[in-house]
Structures are given as C-alpha cells and as structure tokens.
C-alpha cells in the first residue's frame, strides 16, 4: 500500500514560487537524487492518489464490468478515442509503447489504460521528464484533463485486477537478460575461470533504483561488443581439455567435438541443446579445426555460445498450457531458482531434476528452495538485495572528507556480515532493524573509537540495527557533513516505498548564507519556516533529523559546533528520538513491512511489484516465498510461433554419434600435431610489447613440443622457453623442465619484444 503524495504532483498545488516573490530558498541538496532515479519508466515513480480515493480497494477481485462501462463513457469516448487512438493503435506510430489501443476491444483498452495509468496525466500533458512522442495534447483546466484525472483516481480504487504482484496471477512471458553480477558468476561456474569481467560491462538502466529490471536489460552495440570481447578472452583461458569427457583421438575427432558441444551447450543454454544447434556449432568447429586444430575449433564454439541469446537471456517463455497460459518448463524453473537464490546458473542437481521432469510441483520446487537456501551462496544473494534495496552499492564511488578504501571495505563488511548472519540464523525483519549484534571489523572499530571489534553487541541506544550501519550513514551524507535530506529520503522512498517528486522549477533552492556557528539541523530547519519548501521537506527532514547523532562518516557525536545534538524526529506524526527509536517505529509500521516485502519481490522478479502488510516477516521470507507464487511458473502471452526446441530432452550418446557420423570425420590442422598454442599480448606500447603463451598437449600421451609462429617484431627477452628463427617464423621450444608435456598437460611462457 502506498502513501499519499499524489497532491505533490497535482498541477495546481506544490511549492512553486516565483523567484521575485522570495529571494530566499532552501535545500542544500534537494531530494532528486533518488526521487526520480527511476530510469525511463516514470510509471513506477508516480505516487498514488490521496487516501480518500482508495475507498474501493477491497472490492471483489473478479471481473468488474461496471469499470468497463465507466471507462468507455468517461475516458475512452472523450479522450482516448480522440486524442490518443490515432498514434496508439496497433498499427500506429506509438505501437511499440506500453499503451496500444483497439477500437473493438474495450476490455483490452481498459487494461492498457490501467497499466499506464499515472502516465496518462504526465505523458499527453507534457509533464513527463522524457517527454511524449506526440507532444502536448492535453492542458490543465480542460475537460480532457479532468477526464484523465478522474481515470487515474478511479484506477487507484479499482479492484486490484491488473496490478502485477499484489495478486497472485501469471505475468507476461519474457526474456530476462543476465545482469552483470549474474553474468560474472555464470561464466565462472560454466568455464571454471574466475573473472572480474562483469564489473567492467556497461552499466544498465536503473528502474526504481534496481539494475535488474527485465525490460531495461537491453543489449546495446556497446554491450554486445563487450560481450564479444569477454567471450573471446574467456574462451582463450578456459581449460577446454579439462572439460572434455572424451579423447580426441584419430578417427574420433568429430565424435568428441559433438560430445563436447552437446554437453557444454546444454549447460551454457541451461536446457538440452537441440540437434540443429549441435549441427550448427559442429560445422563451426570443423571449419576452424581444419585450419588450427581440434581445440581451437572448440574455443570458437565456446566463444560463440557465450554470445548466444540462449546464454545471455534467461528464457521465461514456457509452453502452451490447457488454460491458454504458458507453463514454464522444468529447465526454465531450474534457472529461475538458481538465479533467484544463488545468482548463477543451475548446479548439477537442478539440471538433473529438470532433465527428469521433477521440478514443477510446489513440493518439488519447495524442496529445491530449501536446499538452495541452506547453501552459503544464498547468503551472498541476501547482501546483494540489501545493497540494491537501499542503494548501498553507491558506497563504491562516494567521496567524503576522511574517506579511504579501507574504511569503505570495513563498512561494507559490517553490513554484509551482519545481514548474512541474520539470514543464516533465520532472523526476522525486526531483528535486521533492531538486533544489537553486529560485525565490526577492526578498521571500523578504530574509526568509531571503540575497543571491541569482531562480533559485538552494541548498546541499542547509540548504535544497533541496520539504520546505524556506517555504510548507510556514509552513503547518505554530504562531503563533510551529515545530510538530513538524504537520510530522510532513503527512509521515505526506499523503506516506505513512497516516491517523492523533485523540487519544482523556479523555486530558488539556494540556501541562505550558512551561519557558520549553526548546527546542521539549524541550517535545514529553514525548510520548515518557508512554506514553499515545507510542503515537500516536511515529509523528509523530520525523519532525517533523527540521524543527527552521526556525522558524514557515521561517527557518533553528542555535540556539533559546541551545541548539543538534537536528534528528535517525526515520522508522519510519530515522535522519536534518534535512529534506534526510528528503527523501532518502522518495525511497527505497516507501510515499512509491506515495502520490505515489495522490495524483495521487485528485486527478485525484475518487474514492478507490490505487497500488503503481513506483520513482521522472516528476513529471507519474501525470497523463499517468491518461487511458491503463481508468476514463478505461469506466464501469459500471445500464442507462440513455431516451437523450434522440439527435442525436450538431453541427447543420448547414440543421437550425438548419429550427428557426428552424418557430419563425417574432420582432420584437425595446426602447426604441431597434438599441441595447441595460444598467445595473449599482455601489454603493448608504441615501440614494444609483452606476451604470454600457453602450450597445451591435446593428446593423452607425452610429447616434446615445438611451435612455429609468425611474430611481428624482435624478441628482446624470453622466459620459460627458447626460440630460434627460421625464415619468417619463430620456432619456440621448451626449456629443460617443460620441453616435454605429459598427456593433456600444459605450460606457459612469456616474452617481450620491440616492434
């Protein structure tokens, strides 16, 4: 349930004033950082209407035919059919937006207008930050405006028929691209290569502050190029010989390649690879293997699969079910479970459950949830959620006076270890907020000036609970002072799920000259003395004042500029003293408890979500509950096209052999039989370079290796190998200890040269 901030956006209300009428303004730092940090999805940040209009929230949740009639006469006829339909028809220029209208299907129009509801008041009216493709069509104080305003109010009172999440009904089919953390973990698990490539990928769009919104995870040209680069690099260091379950001996080359493609492909695509797909990749392998050897061919197979849509997107398409919906397949469910709880690809047990078609009933899914939750990987997920929920990941880039990398890491460690402990021991949301037990790394203990580090019990009066973590207090601060505004906003927006609008234009937001002798609180209290600011800031600052005992680095203080700290606060009429008391109030606040569940669902489902208050919940409760909800296994959607993934089962050895036989044996090329050689330029500058080389014995018997390469330049130093020059080629051989390589063994050497 959301709060009552609609009036803040109403065109006739607000805190807009003309500069001429008051040269004095306020906020040192306005609320906008988070207030509108919702990507290009303004729907999600537009608040609900005033409480009075919520009267019919509890009407029955079956069809509401009277709504269709009301919609048709009061909204469709006067506005949508005349102002919007021209572009928003199925074949109109706005057909790719979320509002597509159909003259002959009023229920569908009702649904479309409900999904976008608040947008109806900001898009055609020109108020939306990203504009409206069709320009401004509706102006205030017109009948059209009134009709849209009526509709927005009305939809907020509708039986929650079309609300995602609040009611447990199927959600639309989709592809959900791996987010960057999932990508990094997945390549690690798939290839056995530990890497930091995920954190170097182009940042995704944040929606509601979350960077895993399925609609926003798009593959741009930039990201596609980064995936290409990563795939090539990762495949070049992956130990493919180690992944082989067959021996690429003479006469068995194609067979062994096909086996690898079937096995690796079914893991990379997280479902059984189809015959046609094996054939495609086998052909690729053969072309390259004939030139550069068996393993080089497989390396390009891996490179290709790492860029495949079947790898990069998680499929949530399902197969058509009897009721007209789509039932997700067991493999899709396996991926949902592993990515939700572990943030990575399914493990062997999940794959086997899917292969055996025993991963679709609530019992079967519930048993896997229990198993996955008992693994430490689930704990990492809980810390990621908290970082995303409260946007604590911003700590990575903040700049503060007195800041250091050590302090940042210590603060992150406190939050992560404490959250994990809450999760591990099945504690509740209330415990997360109030438990005095926390982990204080030595650096942080020193920073706070306390003697005890490690697991400590705090007093619950100065420190205790998540709101008093250094990470949160430092992220929500300014360079060298606390920030009641930022701290108030994070509680209002992230913990109560009540979005705030940005300050209106034409309001002078420059603060009056700072009184050098004043406290931070005094500087901000001017907000409430100026009526044009108080409207918004009375929702923010009185909460933030409760944190005044903590400076910009989270350190406790009892006085500021010689004056005692006043940390009295006000949460919508509930008076409190200091952050621990605020924590207590929040745990008793239905809006906070509902927001916490909503946030878990938002993060866990990658789409807009909502929740109702169900009292105190287990910290990991909403996570455990997600797989048991209808949208986890059921989807809505258009009727599918031709289904091309027809096999539906892992190919048998005989089936793989049949593919290989039909393809025919391939004779791998390459410089030295049984040896593969890769070279990576490890550094390069205008006049020189250094390179790392890897030599792999691809046979099961001992070989003395030699490799002939064309090197552009003159080698100036070499280690772990020797070379001689023959014609255009450098001939590399091993030194005493690595001239011979055992079966499937490998060695590395390096050299530097001048261009």
């Amino acid at each position, binding site marked *: 349930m959301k709060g009552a901030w609609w009036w803040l956006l109403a065109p006739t209300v607000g805190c807009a004033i003309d500069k001429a009428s008051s040269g004095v303004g306020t906020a040192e730092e306005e609320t906008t950082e988070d207030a509108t940090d919702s990507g290009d999805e303004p729907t999600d940040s537009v608040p609900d209407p005033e409480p009075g209009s919520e009267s019919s929230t509890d009407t029955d949740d079956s069809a509401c035919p009277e709504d269709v009639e009301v919609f048709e006469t009061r909204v469709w006829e006067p506005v949508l059919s005349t102002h919007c339909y021209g572009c928003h028809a199925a074949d109109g220029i706005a057909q790719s937006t979320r509002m597509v209208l159909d003259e002959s299907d009023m229920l569908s129009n009702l649904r479309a207008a409900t999904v976008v509801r608040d947008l109806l008041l900001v898009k055609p009216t020109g108020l939306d930050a990203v504009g409206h493709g069709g320009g401004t069509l509706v102006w205030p104080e017109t009948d059209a405006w009134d009709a849209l305003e009526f509709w927005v109010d009305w939809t907020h009172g509708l039986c929650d028929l079309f609300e995602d999440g609040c009611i447990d009904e199927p959600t639309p089919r989709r592809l959900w691209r791996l987010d960057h953390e999932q990508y990094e973990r997945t390549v690690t698990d798939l290839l056995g290569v530990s890497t930091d490539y995920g954190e170097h990928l182009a940042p*995704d769009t944040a929606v509601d502050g979350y960077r895993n919104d399925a609609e926003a995870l798009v593959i741009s040209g930039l990201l596609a190029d980064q995936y290409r680069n990563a795939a090539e690099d990762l495949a070049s260091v992956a130990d493919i010989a180690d992944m082989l379950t067959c021996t690429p001996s003479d006469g068995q080359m194609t067979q062994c390649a096909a086996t690898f493609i079937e096995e690796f492909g079914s893991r990379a695509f997280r479902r059984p690879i189809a015959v046609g797909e094996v054939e495609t990749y086998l052909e690729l392998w053969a072309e390259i293997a004939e030139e550069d050897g068996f393993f080089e061919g497989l390396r390009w197979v891996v490179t290709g699969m790492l860029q495949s849509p079947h790898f990069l997107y998680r499929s949530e398409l399902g197969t058509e079910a009897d009721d007209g919906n789509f039932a997700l397949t067991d493999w899709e469910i396996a991926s949902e479970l592993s990515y939700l709880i572990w943030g990575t690809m399914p493990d062997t047990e999940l794959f086997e459950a899917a292969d055996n078609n025993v991963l679709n009933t609530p019992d079967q899914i519930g048993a896997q949830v229990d198993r996955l939750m008992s693994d430490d990987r689930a704990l990492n997920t809980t810390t990621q959620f908290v970082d995303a929920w409260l946007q604590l990941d911003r700590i990575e880039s903040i700049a503060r006076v007195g800041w250091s990398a050590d302090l940042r890491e210590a603060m992150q460690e406190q939050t992560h270890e404490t959250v994990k402990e809450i999760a591990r021991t099945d504690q509740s949301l209330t415990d997360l907020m109030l438990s005095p037990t926390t982990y204080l790394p030595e650096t942080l203990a020193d920073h706070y000036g306390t003697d005890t580090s490690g697991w400590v019990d705090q007093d619950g009066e100065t420190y205790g609970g998540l709101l008093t973590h250094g990470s949160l207090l430092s992220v929500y601060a300014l360079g060298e002072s606390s920030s009641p505004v930022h701290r108030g906003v994070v509680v209002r927006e992230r913990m109560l799920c009540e979005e705030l609008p940005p300050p209106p234009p034409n309001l002078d937001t420059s603060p009056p000259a700072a009184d050098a002798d004043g406290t931070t609180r005094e500087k901000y209290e001017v907000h409430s003395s100026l009526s044009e600011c108080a409207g918004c800031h009375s929702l923010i600052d009185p909460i933030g004042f409760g944190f005044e005992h903590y400076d910009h680095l989270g350190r406790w203080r009892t006085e500021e500029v010689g004056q005692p700290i006043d940390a009295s606060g006000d949460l919508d009429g509930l008076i409190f003293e200091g952050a621990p008391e605020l924590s207590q109030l929040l745990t008793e606040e239905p809006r906070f408890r509902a927001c916490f569940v909503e946030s878990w669902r938002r993060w866990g489902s990658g789409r807009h979500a909502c929740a109702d208050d169900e009292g105190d919940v287990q910290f990991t409760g909403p996570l455990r509950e997600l797989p048991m909800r209808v949208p986890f296994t059921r989807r809505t959607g258009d009727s599918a096209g031709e289904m091309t993934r027809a096999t539906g089962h892992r190919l048998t050895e005989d089936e793989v052999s049949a593919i290989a036989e039909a393809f025919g044996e391939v004779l791998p090329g390459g410089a030295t039989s049984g040896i593969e050689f890769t070279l990576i330029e490890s550094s390069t500058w205008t006049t020189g370079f250094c390179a790392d080389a890897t030599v792999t014995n691809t046979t099961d018997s001992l070989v003395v290796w030699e490799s002939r390469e064309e090197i552009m330049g003159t080698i100036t130093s070499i280690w772990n190998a020797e070379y001689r020059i023959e014609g255009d080629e450098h001939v590399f051989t091993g030194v005493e200890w690595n001239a011979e390589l055992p079966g499937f063994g490998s060695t590395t050497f390096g050299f530097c040269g001048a261009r």
Partner: protein
Amino acid sequence: MNELSRRRLLVTGASSIFAAPFVRLLSSPARATTDSGRARRLLVFFTPNGTIHNHWRPTGSTSEFTFSAGSVLEPLNAHKDQLLILDGMDFSTGSNHEGGMAAMLTAGGMHSIDQVVADHIGGESRFSSLELGAQTSLWGGSVQTRMCYRDGNFVTPDDSPHNVFDRMFGDIGDPVLLSRRQRLLDINRAEINDLRGRLGMEERHLLDAHLAGLDAVERAISGDSLCESPAAPAYYDPMQNDNFPLVAQHQMDLAVQALACGMTNVLTLQLSHTVGPTVFSWLGQTEGHHSLSHAADTDTTNVANFIACERWYAEQFAYLLDQMSTTTDPLGGGSMLDTTVVFWAQELGDGRMHTCESVPWILAGSGDGFFRTGRYLDLEGATHDGVLTSIAHAFGLELEAFGTGTTGPVSVLR
C-alpha cells in the same frame, strides 16, 4: 581455477597521457567530395548542474567582448574567435534537472541531435557515433544520467577510456580473426531470429535492439584504422572520484583521435551527469559539484568554489579545442576545429532555480564556415530547438524544426 582479470589485461607499461598532437595517419584517407560551408563532424561536450550567470557572461558587445578575470569562460580566451556564445536561450520544453537533461539534445523528441546527425553523416565510418563519458553511470542509466536518445531509448556512454581504446585500436584488421567473428555474428543472429519467431509481437523489442547492436559491432570490427595505434592508457579505476580529471583527459584525447582518424563523424563527450556529485578534490574541494551549484550569492565561499569547478570545466573545453585546432583535418580545409561543429551543452540555466532558461551553450568551430563565430549573442528568449535545427542544417540536413519544437533554424547564428 584459471583467473582472468580484465584489469590485469589492461595494465600496460606505457605512459599515462598521449603526447599531443598524436594522430599518426598510416595512409591518406580517400578525399571525400565535401561541400564547402558544410560541417563534417559533430562533437558534443557536456557538463552538468547549470551556472551562475553573472560569473559566466562575457562583457561587451556582440563582436567586441571579453572574459573578465576570474570568470568561468576566461580559460577560453585563446579560442575567442572560434566561439559563438549563446546567452538568453531557453529550452523549448523540459525544466529542472531531469526534464532539462532529457530535453537538452532532443527538444522533446525521440532522438537526440547527435543520433539524427549520425544517421545523416555516419556514412561508412566504423562507428555511426561514439558516446564517451566520465563517471556518468555510477547510479546506473536513468533520465538523470543519459543525454543521448535513439527511438526514445538511452544510448549508453562508455565511461572507460580503456574500453574505448580497445574498441578503437583493438585487434582489428586481421582477416582470419574477422572472418571468424563474422561467422559467430551470423550464427548468433540466426539464433536471435529463431527465438524472435517464438515470441509475440510485444515481446520482440529486446531482440530487435540486440540485432541492431550486433550490426553496430559488425561495422565496428570490420573497418580498418587509418591511424597508428598510440600507447594504451595505463590502467586506473575510471569510477573513482579522484580519477575524474584523468578520465576526462583520456576521453578527450580519444575523441579527437576517433574523429581525426575517420573512425566516426559524430561523438559525444559527457562529463558527469545532472545532479552529478563529483567532488573536485584536485582543486582542494570537499563538497560535491551539485551541492555547490546551490550556493546563494551571499554564500561567497561556496560560490567561489562552484566557479572554480566551472572554470575547470572551461579549461577542459579549452583543452579539447586546443587539440582540435592543432590537428589538421585529413580531408583538407584547415584544422579539425575549422570543419567541425563543437558544441558545449548544458542542461540547466541557473542551477539554483532548476530552470532551463538562459541555458549557457557555446558553439565552437564554424563547421567549415557555416556558423559565424567570434560573437557573443543574446538570443533574447529564442528556444533551443531552433539552435538544434540550425546544427542539423550545418550538416545539410534541412529540417523544418527539431523535436517537438516549431521554431526552425536561428538565422542569427549564421
């Protein structure tokens, strides 16, 4: 377990900054038939959070003006003749941080000016356009952090000079490597099309974007560089606040190189973003740029701090103009600056008011004589959609209007 650190791969022993001028052409480009009086390239430079006008405005008349000592634009003195300083220009639509950021280059439409121009003059270059940034994405993509739009979607800037360097000078030109990469692109495209066929109409947009992305990749890896690769910048973390100046300089160097080497004709360079919290620690400052942008006139200390930041941004723009003016246009006709439209865009007027009125824009370089530079213009409330229309005209793109605006070109610019 094997380890592969992108960071480690990027570490090199080379010096940190390119020597300038640094463009070393390997071969002369085919001399295109270019119309005189028509701009060849567009370079958009952005800095956030508005200005304080009385510290920004030049003094004097349209043609006889000076930058007073200590003012924001003083660092641009050497380039005065190449500047067209626009005062009194309001946005036609959009206000506030987010609205201004969204409307700045789009004027309310679905495409930003850089993308519109790229579609017109992108030609055969490897990159239809290049979007470079400095710490634009610490909060992820959002209306606050993006300025380039295509079809209403964000075009994401590349915040890593190391990645930009790889894209520009990476291992292109090897025919075997290229044929294998193209082979994979074909396989992946077929997979996407197959998957696309299984989706309903409304579910396809992600894959359509993906296909467009692969087309861009193919184009980028297929080309050849006209230039010798300079040394790669040594690795540092481009997201750390204190590295902001280094990122900015490397991105500017790479930008000039990309344009001069014919890799692209359209480039945007976005330093931070609206509400950007950058702390100019290298100037000894402790408070973020956005906070400082709200200093009242009576708060002389913080006004001075803010103006110091703004002057630093002006110095960066001056450095960019230095590089452009000392690099010869390989197509002839003078320096790169002479034939390019360089354009310093901002999203707000007075940052304290959150308004998009008198937004301080500067055009630099005449676009081969299209714009009449060396002037300080009061546009007297003319709107920015008109200026964007004029920029389109500089490239021979005769639009009647831009975005949702209706103004048409601003004749006084010529």
